[in-house]
Every structure is written in structure tokens, then in C-alpha cells.
């Protein structure tokens, strides 16, 4: 009797909530089927099993050569994992036929002209269904242009600039499933102003190009909105691949800043932190790229304590809430420990989390959209994806805003703590992410409605 009643009450509340359309988390259109995870032991990124013939073709358009070649490998392992998983489940039923997923590497050499050419080759010669990209918003811009010209779906999983989807550059063939510069800036400001409420003096140090400037712009907007008492004690933009940060660091030190907000990525982010610690500057840095474990190790436990990382693959603590999540994690981590060879055997690839996790699940989302669209017809995929929502294995829910194709999502602020305190987050043995550096401890959720993706008012659809 009493249980029956309880169930009834719960059901009533649940329906009420559904009607209010509040709990987005419960209302995702689709979610990752963790229970169906196949045996992944034959997954080897160095010798991937890639189906050919009549397949669903995804081209990873990225740097596979040149100084940023490692970025291409990170994308590849993430996307190929998702593809391998789905392939072992039998592929996807599209247009009345079951097809496997073929991942193709398309090397841009980090050059726009090469990117354009390789994208055209992917479309005209390889007949790919999706262009998946990439590091560098200028390259992503090229991908989107080509996608528009030939009417092929593009997914922006790693270029974070808002400008890619403003009135001028928007194309309905492209979807931005990553987080975005302006949103990230506001998220960091929200964390410091509404959650942490401690430090008041901020210094902005970003790279001097579009990406760096829009990261900074977002942070400044966020401070105005969520932290009016905060004080911006300095703002600098340095050139890319800077050799010597010392002059900036001396300036920062003299400014009395309590936190340095930076949009730098590796290697600049790493050099900045390393040189700061060498110069005896112990200030925390807030960033989205200061999570690369190889350089965190170089700086060590002390040097990395107190860093703040805004993550697009977060969820409230602890990391593992059910057995399926543990099973998924172990499927990856065991292979990393035992089988993978260089370059996939470094700390960088230890966890299917962070950026790797994010790229992987953005791909799962794409595949799920194709599956539910039931077709490779771009029009059907667009129709399916607009307004779609998808739940990652972590429970994080992504929603595709129809008007400008940007993903709406909660973001999470990771505060870095020494290994001994990481148990609050990493709740299975060995109870820490890494032993040689600080990493995620407390996690704060920055709710999606506080950091809605920037919408260009001029964009009329």
C-alpha cells in the first residue's frame, strides 16, 4: 500500500516536472547506451580496424603533420573509439541499410589553403558524409564554407570561436557541439563571482588573435554580470608561440593580481605556467587547456595546486556514479595500461575524460543523430539535430539550439587539488587521477541558463 502510494506521488511529481519542461536532464531525446558497450579489447589506435566499402564516412579534418600533429592523434583516437564501439554493435541503419562507420584522416597541416583542398577531396573524391573539425577557428571557417558549398554536414567539435556561427559565417550544414569562447569566459566569471566569492583581482593574459580576444571578452562580460565587485588589474595579449613570458609575468606580479585568466593553449599555456612557477609566482590560473597531464607532471603537485579548469566534459562529483561508468572507464584505461604504443601510451591518453571524453561523446551524439534521422541525407540530419538533446555517459546533457546550431550545456569548474584529496572526485582505486600532479577535486556546476551560448541578434532564420 505505502509503496504504491509513494510511487504514485513520485510519478505525479515527475509528470508535473515534465509538463513544466524544467528537468532537461530527464528529458534528453536520446542517451548513450552504456549497457551495450561491446568488447573493445581489439581497439588499437595505432592499427585501427577501419571498415571500407559502403560505409558512413567521417573525415577528421585536422593537423596530422606539422607542429600540432599530436592534436590530430587526440581527435583520431577519440572519434575512432566511438566509431569502433558503434561498428561492433553492428553499425547504424540508414536509408534501409546497416552501415559501419569509416573514419578518414584528412590532414590540414594547419594551413587554410590545404584545409580547403583536403575538404574538397574528402567530399568530391571520398564522398564523406561528415567533416569533423578542428583545431583553429580559421581552419574551421574553411571547413564550414566547403560544407556549405557542397551541402555536406560539418561538426565543429574543437574550434571554440563564437564568430563561426554569427550572422555572417553561419551555415545550416554545420553544428557546433563544443563549448564556446564567450560562454567559457562568462562561466569562469560566474564561478569566481557566484560560487567561490573569494579572489577579487583578476589579470587577463590571452593570445593576440581572434580566439584569445573573444575568450577575454567573454570573461569581461561575465565579470560585469556576475561579479561587479571584481577588479581587472591588467589585460595583455601576447603573440602566439611566445618564447619568453618573463616580461608579462613580472607585470602580473607587480599588478597584485590574485587570479590570472588565460585562454592560452599548449604550448603557450604550458610555457606560461612553467615559467611562472620558475619565477616564483604561485598565482592560480584559470583556463580550459591547463589540463594536459604531461606538463602538469612537469610542474608537479605544488605548482599545479589551485589551478582552475573550465571543462566541457564535467559532471558533479563523484566521477563514477554507477557500474556502467566504471566499466566504460576500465575498457579504455586497461587498454591504455597494457596495449597501446606511442604516442598513445603517455599520461595524455590515460583517461577517457576531459577533452578526449568530450570529443568522443560529441561523436557519439553525431552518430546517434544519424541513427535517429535514419538517413545520410543532410536535410534529414539537420532536421533531426536542430533542437535535439543527448545525454553523455557522465549524465551531462547537450541540447542543440535550432536557431544558430550551438550546443546548450552546463559547464563545470574543476578546482585542482593534490592527489590525496582527489578521492572526492575519482572515487575508485587508485583514488586519484595522477600521482605526480594536482588534478580535479571539487567540481562546481555552472548551470546552462547562466551561460547560454552567445546569439548574434543579426542572425535571422
Amino acid at each position, binding site marked *: 500500500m505505502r509503496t504504491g502510494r509513494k510511487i504514485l506521488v513520485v510519478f505525479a511529481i515527475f509528470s508535473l516536472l515534465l509538463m513544466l519542461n524544467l528537468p532537461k536532464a530527464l528529458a534528453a531525446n536520446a542517451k548513450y547506451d552504456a549497457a551495450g558497450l561491446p568488447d573493445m579489447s581489439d581497439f588499437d589506435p595505432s592499427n585501427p580496424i577501419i571498415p571500407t566499402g559502403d560505409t558512413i564516412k567521417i573525415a577528421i579534418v585536422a593537423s596530422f603533420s606539422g607542429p600540432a600533429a599530436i592534436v590530430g592523434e587526440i581527435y583520431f583516437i577519440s572519434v575512432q573509439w566511438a566509431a569502433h564501439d558503434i561498428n561492433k554493435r553492428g553499425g547504424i541503419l540508414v536509408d534501409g541499410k546497416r552501415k559501419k562507420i569509416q573514419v578518414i584522416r584528412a590532414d590540414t*597541416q594547419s594551413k587554410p*589553403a590545404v584545409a580547403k583542398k*583536403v575538404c574538397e577531396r574528402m567530399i568530391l573524391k571520398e564522398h564523406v558524409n561528415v567533416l569533423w573539425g578542428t583545431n583553429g577557428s580559421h581552419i574551421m571557417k574553411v571547413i564550414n*564554407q566547403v560544407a556549405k558549398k557542397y551541402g555536406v554536414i560539418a561538426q565543429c567539435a574543437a574550434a571554440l570561436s563564437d564568430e563561426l556561427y554569427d550572422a555572417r559565417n553561419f551555415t545550416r550544414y554545420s553544428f557546433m557541439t563544443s563549448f564556446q569562447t564567450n560562454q567559457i569566459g562568462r562561466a569562469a566569471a560566474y564561478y569566481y563571482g557566484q560560487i567561490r566569492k573569494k579572489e577579487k583581482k583578476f589579470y587577463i593574459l590571452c593570445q593576440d588573435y581572434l580566439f584569445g580576444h573573444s575568450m577575454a571578452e567573454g570573461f569581461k562580460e561575465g565579470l560585469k554580470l556576475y561579479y561587479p565587485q571584481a577588479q581587472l588589474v591588467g589585460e595583455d595579449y601576447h603573440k602566439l608561440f611566445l618564447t619568453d613570458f618573463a616580461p608579462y609575468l613580472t607585470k602580473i606580479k607587480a599588478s597584485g593580481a590574485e587570479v590570472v585568466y588565460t585562454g592560452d593553449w599548449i604550448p603557450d599555456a604550458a610555457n606560461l605556467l612553467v615559467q611562472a612557477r620558475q619565477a616564483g609566482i604561485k598565482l592560480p590560473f584559470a583556463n580550459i587547456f591547463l589540463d594536459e597531464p604531461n606538463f602538469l607532471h612537469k610542474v608537479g603537485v605544488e605548482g599545479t595546486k589551485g589551478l582552475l579548469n573550465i571543462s566541457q566534459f564535467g559532471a558533479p562529483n563523484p566521477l563514477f556514479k554507477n557500474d556502467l561508468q566504471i566499466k566504460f572507464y576500465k575498457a579504455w584505461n586497461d587498454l591504455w595500461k597494457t596495449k597501446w604504443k606511442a604516442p598513445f601510451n603517455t599520461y595524455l591518453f590515460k583517461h577517457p575524460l576531459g577533452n578526449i571524453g568530450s570529443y568522443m561523446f560529441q561523436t557519439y551524439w553525431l552518430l546517434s543523430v544519424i541513427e535517429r534521422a535514419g538517413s545520410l541525407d543532410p536535410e534529414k540530419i539537420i532536421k533531426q539535430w536542430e533542437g535535439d538533446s543527448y545525454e553523455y555517459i557522465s549524465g551531462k546533457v547537450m541540447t542543440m539550439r535550432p536557431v544558430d546550431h550551438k550546443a546548450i550545456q552546463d559547464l563545470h569548474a574543476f578546482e585542482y587539488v593534490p592527489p590525496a584529496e582527489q578521492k572526492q572526485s575519482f572515487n575508485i582505486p587508485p583514488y586519484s587521477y595522477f600521482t605526480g600532479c594536482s588534478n580535479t577535486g571539487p567540481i562546481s556546476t555552472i548551470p546552462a541558463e547562466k551561460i547560454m551560448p552567445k546569439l548574434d541578434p543579426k542572425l535571422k532564420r
Partner: protein
Amino acid sequence: MTKRMAKWVSWGFLCLVLLVFPRVFGIYYSNVFVAFAIFAVYSLTLNMLLGYTGLLSFGHAMFFGTGAYTTAIALDRISGMPLLPVVLAGFVASVVLALILCPIVVRVGGTAFAMLHLAFGQLMYVLALKLRFLTGGEDGVGGFPIPAFSIPGIISVDMTNPLNFFYFAIAVLGLSTWILWFFTKTPIGSIMIGIRDNPQRVEYMGFRVTHTKAIIYCLAAGFAGITGSIYALFQNLISAEDGYNIMVSFGPIMATIVGGVGSFSGPIFGSAIFSIIEELTSRYTERVELVMGLILIGVILYAPMGFMGVMGLLKQRWLAARKVKLEGAK
């Protein structure tokens, strides 16, 4: 007479091949061909300096980039710009830049000339990155409207169609090539070669070396500007990386050396070789640098005269062999 006929026939044949090229090979290879043609003509303009006048420039990208940026910014900022004037604007802008540099650079030769260009080229590169309000910084200028090719009241051809653009680009580049070739056959062209081989002598003969250098310099710059302009239209994007990067300056030098310095068509063959290599490497290997590096080393060690030189050598040998054979037959 027959020789002349053969020449016209072969030109006609070339035109026919170009005409049917897109129909036979499709859009992708047409685009590859346009990219090659742009690079080839751009290399030709460098060869006007290097091969004909003996001036080595490490900053030729300045003119390529300026032409490209001028066209891109004009289309981006001014609505309704017609096609031919924007290409012409690329030409004019590069000539203006060359005129500004002239007083400084034509005074020197040899390495100083090369290094000055390296320096100014890098200056342009940094400016393109820094003047974000104008050049879009790292992201460049892109997505601007491509105007139709139109003669009011007569025709209007849509240039966003890759096929139409192919014909347009080939026509402009072909015309540029012809003008450059024609120029080398004029008296000033002969003075050019004289400057390369013996500047003092040219001076004594009463020609003004500095002035002639300046004219050639501006001409090479202007046509490099045109290739840049076509490039910007072709890519619908120009960034500092593709316009002003040091490699954009080195590219045509490599093409010229590999193709054969000193002959008019050398750079064209060099560009063709590089285009083919690029097409192959991008497909079969990610070791782009290794392949390029080894080819460069190999060419310079074993065939420093370049493709044209090797062809010349083979022709000589063949002729010699035939002669021997003929004599043997007697």
C-alpha cells in the same frame, strides 16, 4: 613555315585540352589545376627577378599577399565591386608597394637584396596579424561575396560555380603568362639578362641599370599581385599564413630551382612537380616535410640545373647518340 604551323597547332591543342579539362577530370582536379596555375604564374613572376635579372628575393610573398588582401578587403568592405576591377586593384596595390620599396631595394643586389625582402616580408606578415580591424588577424579575410563576371547588358557569369571560375582563372593567368613572356622578348628583356650577367657592361652601354631594375621589379610585383588576387577569389579566404608566410616566399624559389632557373618555362614545370608531389603526399603519407626535404636535397645534389636542365641534357645526349648512330650507318 611548317614550324610556325606546328606552333599554332600545339597552342590550339593546349587551349582545347584546357577547355575540356574540367569535363574530363571533374571539379576536384579542376581546382587542383587552378591551384597549380596560380602557383606556376606566381613562380614565373619570381623568375623574372631571379632567373632573368639575377635578383634573389626572400620576400616575394609580400606582393602575392598584398594582391590577395587588396582583393579580399575590397570585396569584403565595398558592396557591389565588380570582378575585373578587384583583380586590377590587386595588381595596382602590389605595384604601389613595389614603388615604395624601390628606392631602398634597387640600390642593392645579392644577399642584401634577399635579406631586405626577408625583413620587409616579415614586417608585412606581422602587420597582417596585428592590424586585426583590417585584416582579421590570424583568421584572415574570408567569406566575402564573389562577384559575377559581367559585361553590362551582354553577359553575366556566376563565378561561384567552380567550372566558370576555372575558365576565368585560366584566362587571366594565361594572359598574364603571355604578357610576361612577351616582355622577355622586348629590348628591355634583353637588358634584364644583361643586368644578370654583367651589370657594369649594361651601364657602360648607356642603359640605366637601376631604372631598368625598378621597372622589372614593379612588373614582377604587379603580376604576383594578380596571382594573389586570383588566389583570394579561388579560396574565398586569405590569411597571413597563406599570404605572407615565409614559406609563400620560398615556394616559388624552390619551384624555380627544381624546374630549372633561367628558362622561361622552368618554374611552370617546377610548380607542376610540386603540385604532383603535394597531391601524392597528402594522400599517402603524413611525412610531408621528409618528402619535400629529401627532394630538395636530392635535386640540389644531383640535378642542380633543375628539370629543364635535365631535359636539355637528355636531349643533347639523345642527339649525340643519334649522330653517332647516323655516322655509324654511313
